[in-house]
């Protein structure tokens, strides 16, 4: 199956003076895809989004939208719509004027522009707010207007710059679903910037993890979860974060001795270099508590936090190993427990390069 590409970035570079914000970004986004750009603040994800929008000029490489080179094309000729973190609603215009702003610029007849805006407003529940000013709306309503303003244009590409970060937690979960549903309904291509890996994992078809101007890894959400390419991605994707424990492989490279009290040994899924220092990654949800002596790692519980549905257990030296339990167990702080893990769930990283072994 050949997929039609909507956005293509070939070796895109961006410099701000001496600061190298984007380094050789290589990204192909097929038509209809929902792509999430995720990473810690300052990783260049917003810069990349703004470069696609045309708000930043790229310093090198090539950027194409539907096979047209866009490097020096101003934003208004790119046919992209953007939803800003602050929503950027025009404060001096009513909701309907905000919605029809782009249509008026395209010289759409007034009656038609109003009709389109009203249709869009009805689909996102704004029909009763059309004559209000942005200052008279709640955060969630403003967010909808910002979305509506983008939808009205029927653009090739939707760009979202952390659109949910100003909403409260429950509304955020709700809007997450709504944005994804909207994307599917419109058959649009969306690029979504977020620092929240849960948003990225739940909404996107394709997740791009960035760090310091470089794409660390990209792929389907579960692929990133199951096969992280580096310690950074492994630690970033998944919540709570993966446990990292130092260790040394044994003489024939089939097991690793962990650098924690009791120096337990874990069998490895495959043979690796022998007598080598490694970082072992263990996901909290892959660890199970078994009867003392039956698991691989014997340790003491130092913290227990229960949310009702899930219990977070801190164990090991200074509680640095986190375990997530979905069933309730009769355990308390100070108990000696034994942790088990499936051999296939063990991740190994090179402590120097931090890449997967």
């Amino acid at each position: 199956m050949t997929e039609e590409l909507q956005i293509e970035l070939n070796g895109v570079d961006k410099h701000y003076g001496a600061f190298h914000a984007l380094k050789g970004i290589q990204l192909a986004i097929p038509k209809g895809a929902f792509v999430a750009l995720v990473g810690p603040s300052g990783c260049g994800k917003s810069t990349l989004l703004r470069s696609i929008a045309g708000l930043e000029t790229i310093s090198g490489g090539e950027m194409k939208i539907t096979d047209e080179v866009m490097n020096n094309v101003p934003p208004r000729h790119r046919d992209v719509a953007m939803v800003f973190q602050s929503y950027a609603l025009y404060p001096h215009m009513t909701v309907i004027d905000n919605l029809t702003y782009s249509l008026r610029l395209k010289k759409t007849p007034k009656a038609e522009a109003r009709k389109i805006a009203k249709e869009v407003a009805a689909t996102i529940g704004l029909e009763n707010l059309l004559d209000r000013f942005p200052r008279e709306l709640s955060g969630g309503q403003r967010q909808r207007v910002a979305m509506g303003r983008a939808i009205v244009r029927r653009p090739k590409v939707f760009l979202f710059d952390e659109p949910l970060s100003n909403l409260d937690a429950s509304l955020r979960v709700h809007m997450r679903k709504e944005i994804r549903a909207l994307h599917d309904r419109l058959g649009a291509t969306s690029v979504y910037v977020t620092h929240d890996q849960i948003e990225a994992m739940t909404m996107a078809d394709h997740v791009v993890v960035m760090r310091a101007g470089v794409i660390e890894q990209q792929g389907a959400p579960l692929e990133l979860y199951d096969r992280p390419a580096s310690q950074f991605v492994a630690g970033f994707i998944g919540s709570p974060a993966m446990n990292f424990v130092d260790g040394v492989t044994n003489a024939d490279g089939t097991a690793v001795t962990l650098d924690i009290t009791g120096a337990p040994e874990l069998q490895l899924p495959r043979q690796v270099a022998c007598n080598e220092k490694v970082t072992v990654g263990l996901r909290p949800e892959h660890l199970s508590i078994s009867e003392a002596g039956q698991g691989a790692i014997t340790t003491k519980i130092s913290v227990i936090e229960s949310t009702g549905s899930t219990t977070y257990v801190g164990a090991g030296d200074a509680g640095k190993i986190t375990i997530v339990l979905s069933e309730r167990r009769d355990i308390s702080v100070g108990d000696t427990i034994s942790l088990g893990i499936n051999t296939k769930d063990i991740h190994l990283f090179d402590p120097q390069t931090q890449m997967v072994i």
Partner: protein
Amino acid sequence: MMTPHLNRIYLGAAIVFAIIYLFPLYWMYVTALKSGSEIFAYPPTFIPKDPQWGVFSHVWDVRGMGRFIWNSLVIATGTMILVAGLGTGCSYVLARYRNIWIDVALFLVLMLQVLPASLMITPLFVGFSAVGLLDYPRFAVILAVTAKAMPFFVILVRATFMAVPAELEEAALVDGNSRVGAFVSVVLPLARNGVLVSAILIFMQAFGEFVYSKSIIQDVNLQPASVGLNAFMGPNTVEWNNIMAYATIYVTPILAAFVLLQQRIVAGLTSGALK
């Protein structure tokens, strides 16, 4: 408690200072209404015994004030339009871009503000004379006052533009507008209050301008009210009531406008006009 006590002391001090500041204004009004002998009476009277209301129309006719006020209006309006027209775009650029040249430009703008008019007038006069601008003396004054008032306007309006979030402009760009279009349809309406208030302040400043007008405009028919007032006051003047009546006619409209707009002026200068 200390606080209400202290508040009362501050309030009292404020009132005393206000009285000291406003006394000359009060004296102008009462002197205008006094008769010749009452002006020089000792002890002075604080309320005129026999107010001479006719003094205003008398002075207006005798001194030909209509012409003077008209010239003041021409100079003030011209200055305001020129300053706002040239200064708005300039302030916007100075607000939106950040680099070393912008800092240099801002420094130079502030430097201009430091130079006094009385120092600038000589080179300006020579320059205007060389290019023949002295044949259009009111226009020459407008140019000179514009140059003088521009830094003040730029500093004020730049602050207003800085309060308009850049994201609004970016939204307009992505929505299909050009840089200029985004400025006109989004940034300017949001900065409107600040620009208008600054323009009004420039108008008031130009309406009272004296140094440039006095030096550049020789023809009495083209002189503004400030120069006319100065000419009224000779070394042997005794008609203080007429002079004060002239001053009253000159400043009262501006004063009234300021008092009426006072709240908006303060609001326009302090708030970002947003939210």
